[in-house]
């Protein structure tokens, strides 16, 4: 195998790994915020009517991914503004996901490259 061919193979593998990393990080970020994650410690969104849970969406563009909710009470739950009692899951999932984001990336990369 010539140098050019090796370089081409490396480049293709690099691009594939990068795409897989992006896809994996997006998926784990969404899971952490919505369902909760053992990687970030996020509890996930409290579920009663599923309105808040189902309001979370993820828009993936070329250079950025936006994970958001249009629920009017998403902020109150995230910040735990009224010190509410939840039957399941809990507040602070976005914050937990943000501070532990490097761990998400590390975990996903480890899963791809071994």
């Amino acid at each position: 195998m010539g140098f050019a061919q090796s370089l081409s193979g490396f480049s293709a593998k690099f691009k594939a790994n990068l795409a897989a990393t992006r896809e994996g990080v997006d998926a784990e970020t969404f899971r952490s915020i919505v369902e909760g994650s053992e990687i970030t410690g996020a509890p996930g969104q409290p579920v009663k009517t599923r309105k808040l849970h189902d309001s979370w969406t993820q828009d993936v563009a070329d250079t950025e991914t936006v994970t958001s909710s249009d629920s009017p009470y998403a902020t109150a739950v995230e910040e735990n503004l009224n010190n509410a009692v939840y039957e399941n899951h809990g507040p602070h999932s976005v914050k937990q996901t943000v501070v532990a984001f490097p761990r998400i990336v590390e975990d996903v990369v480890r899963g791809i490259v071994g």
Partner: protein
Amino acid sequence: MIDHRSYQVALRAKALTLSVVTTGSISLSATATGYARASGSFLADGFARGMELTPSGFASNPVDVITDVSALSITTKNARTVEGAAGSRTLAVGLPSARAWENKKPVQDPPIAGIPFVREQYIPGPPALQVTLGQFGDLELLPQYALHIHVPADCGFEAPSAYADAVMRLFTPRTAIPVGSDVLRVSDRGPFRGTLTQSSPGFAVVPITAPLWIRTPNSI
């Protein structure tokens, strides 16, 4: 060693040192409706409606809430004893004295309308991660400390913004908070504040969160 209890104690002690606004030591008088000065400006100092005011240097120093501010006068929620002008007096705003520490009922429950209060939350963060090898290898912990400043509704944005800015300055990125032989630090990504939103009836709330970082030896 993992010690969330001590981290929270240290963070709370830091929060108690909060200084939002102060006149510094100047000549002030007490009026029947609040306080007055002959020169300078309470507005320029940053005092705003809805802040809890702590006087010092007067014969009587009642903690009260600001209901109106002009350059030369401050009106408080309650009437007070008149005292003539004298130097070495201070008006200051710090962490609200009504405090709902975590899992502890505030002294006034429910909160009294028109009086700011603060609620504390400690978020332990993701699982502890061993980041260096060997005996007593370092564990990395990423807790967060949140203060929710509740101010009277309809007092405008100035008071809650000033409280929030002061908290953010107190926990500015890379602030070191010693805890025993370890050092808790505010991470490079923080602190951050949420939007001012309606809270319980009669209050608006602004949440401020400081993300933290600490490495501590694994005790095994």
